[in-house]
């Protein structure tokens, strides 16, 4: 059981800055995120795209912003629980008992949901029968590549994941790479490599094809692919891999008794608390009149929510407003030596 003042759900820029604000006022926190790294949408959707509207930062990429936020919260030694999704919240007297998908448990005074538009999950094939094979012969990510040795693999997608795995697996497996158009979104060098391998007969590239159906008994045996112009090919496959990026799903948040409107959680603008006492929501996931889905708004919301958490974490103490320029306590928490 991890005991801390506040649990932050979501390690995007808003959640990270909220951790900073909690640290400044002397509260401890831990952060859970479903992705394998911090940064949220900034890292997952646009790590290389420049952002121009962070106050006092004329231009930075999603990755730079994330790294700077991580640097900013370093003094607080915030513990991260990555690859974990919060599944269950239970009120336990004045505190919350929280459980994640991986069985990690927390005992906290307050919860801040900074979950963006939900947790990132892989996008799946539109073909219904795929569900039946998911996890046994159809995958959206690879955990153990050794199972593909000497097998026939059909990979769908045109981004870096699809290209990189096609190239790598072509060394040990028979690989079919299927993509809906001639262009690819992955790195140009990988596209050239795939085309070379195709010319050398070390990989079969099918462009302008999409999945039509999969068939097999317990495991996939073959997959049918359909050309833009309607022609259908059946290719033998032991495994099917789909790499269509990630999509955001609200997931278990829907079951926590919060007022939810159009995939967002309603909050008050005084401290960004939801209709449930002790649960706050900030960033893209919260809604209130005038809400802007900007990172800078998330920072403001996090600062107020952190202060809102104080009365739950330290009910017998009064929070005094202080500036980091002059507050000795804040500077000590930041580890500043004078």
């Amino acid at each position, binding site marked *: 059981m991890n005991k801390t003042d506040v649990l932050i759900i979501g390690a995007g820029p808003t959640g990270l800055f909220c951790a900073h604000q909690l640290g400044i006022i002397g509260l401890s926190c831990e952060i859970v995120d479903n992705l394998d790294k911090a940064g949220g949408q900034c890292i997952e959707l646009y790590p290389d795209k420049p952002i121009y509207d962070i106050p006092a930062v004329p231009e930075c990429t999603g990755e730079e912003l994330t790294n700077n936020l991580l640097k900013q919260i370093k003094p607080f030694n915030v513990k991260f629980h990555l690859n974990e999704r919060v599944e269950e919240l239970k009120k336990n007297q004045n505190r919350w008992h929280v459980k994640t998908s991986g069985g990690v448990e927390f005992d906290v005074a307050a919860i801040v949901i900074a979950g963006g538009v939900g947790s990132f999950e892989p996008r799946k094939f539109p073909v219904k029968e795929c569900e039946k094979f998911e996890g046994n012969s159809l995958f959206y990510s690879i955990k153990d590549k050794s199972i593909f040795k000497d097998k026939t693999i059909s990979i769908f997608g045109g981004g870096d994941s699809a290209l990189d795995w096609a190239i790598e697996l072509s060394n040990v497996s028979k690989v079919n790479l299927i993509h809906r158009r001639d*262009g690819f979104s992955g790195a140009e060098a990988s596209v050239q490599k795939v085309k070379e391998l195709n010319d050398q007969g070390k990989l079969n590239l099918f462009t302008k094809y999409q999945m039509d159906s999969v068939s097999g008994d317990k495991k996939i045996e073959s997959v049918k692919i359909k050309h833009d112009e309607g022609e259908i090919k059946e290719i033998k496959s032991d495994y099917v891999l789909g790499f269509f990026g990630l*999509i955001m799903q609200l997931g278990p948040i829907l079951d926590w008794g919060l007022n939810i409107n159009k995939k967002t959680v309603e909050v008050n603008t005084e401290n960004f608390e939801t209709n449930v006492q002790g649960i706050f929501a900030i960033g893209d996931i919260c809604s209130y009149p005038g809400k802007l889905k900007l990172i800078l708004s998330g920072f403001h919301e996090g600062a107020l929510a952190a202060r809102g958490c104080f009365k739950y974490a330290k009910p017998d103490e009064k929070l005094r407003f202080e500036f980091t320029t002059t507050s000795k306590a804040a500077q000590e928490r930041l580890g500043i030596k004078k």
Partner: protein
Amino acid sequence: MVKITYHTHDNKTHTVDVQKGLTVMEGAIQNDIPGIDADCGGGMACATCHVYVKEEWLDKLPAKEDGEEDMLDMAFEPKNNSRLSCQLIVSDELDGLEVNIPSKQG
């Protein structure tokens, strides 16, 4: 105002007035037309505002920018007439535009 018609997957037709300068995505969101998620808020970063454009309108639309086709690779059941509605800015030329909203966005 420009008239845009959205055909939703439940076979309903919604014809609404959308202010010039907004996107076809925003027109759907403001009018509570179901089936457009627009998770990223119009940043061409998520492919959850995917629509199928009625064939006769395809040539009248602004060309796809770099990146839109890449995102469409991720969309649910993309077709040749697929577009991201956040990239379609409403103008007089698009008066009467019709789009179909897919059965789901991901």
